[in-house]
């Protein structure tokens, strides 16, 4: 490979088509969920040790930071699932053309925002 070729890595100047945005968000939410599991499994483990620690975990989760973390985690999981389901459809040969690919990408972003708003309201 010719290493002298010009490389443009100024991501803020590159316009992302919907399908590219969906792809990078799938990665970002995947990595975020891996680290969110530290908190989720930690909270789960201590919530099951005694009634007192269950109460303190509940109290933490009802605080402002706790609620934001819960909403963020649930939102990331929702997105990652939607992106994953889209991948499964693509495995079966759908949404592989430029137009249908971008439309399905726009669809899951719209659905994700709508579901995040609904769950955000319910959790808050």
């Amino acid at each position, binding site marked *: 490979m010719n290493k002298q070729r010009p490389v443009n890595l100024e991501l803020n100047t590159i316009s992302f088509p919907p399908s590219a945005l969906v792809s990078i968000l799938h990665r970002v939410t*995947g990595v975020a969920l*891996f680290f969110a*599991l530290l908190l989720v499994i930690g909270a789960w483990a201590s919530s*099951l040790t005694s009634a007192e620690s*269950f109460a303190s975990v509940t109290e933490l989760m009802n605080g402002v930071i706790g609620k934001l973390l819960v909403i963020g985690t649930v939102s990331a999981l929702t997105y990652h699932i939607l992106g994953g389901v889209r991948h*499964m459809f693509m*495995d079966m040969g759908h949404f592989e053309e430029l137009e249908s690919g971008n439309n399905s990408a726009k669809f899951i972003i719209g659905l994700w925002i709508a579901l995040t708003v609904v769950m955000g309201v319910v959790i808050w």
Partner: protein
Amino acid sequence: MVTNQASIKRDGVQDFVSLRTTAIVILAYSIFMLWFFVSTPTVTYEVWSGLFSNLAVKVFTLAALVSVMIHVRIGLWQVLTDYVKPHNVRAVIQFLLNLIAFAYVAVGLFVLWGV
């Protein structure tokens, strides 16, 4: 091919299938937890520990955690090979992340054991 299937060495087809089968288990578990929270008016400690003392729920939870370990082993490797080019740095990061993923399973096993 035969040696590949019999050893821990991975190939693309294995990764493809493992990523999707583990995703289905995690999806099923997510729907199960959503159903639990929606259908339970108030989650008290009694209800919560009762849920995880059920043998089927223990098995399902452990299956979900093992699925997460396999899923992130492939997914984080895919991300790291794209963004972390020096082999030694990537090897160390992957080692640590896979260790954390194993810890998730181990914590899950011991917690479920005690409920």
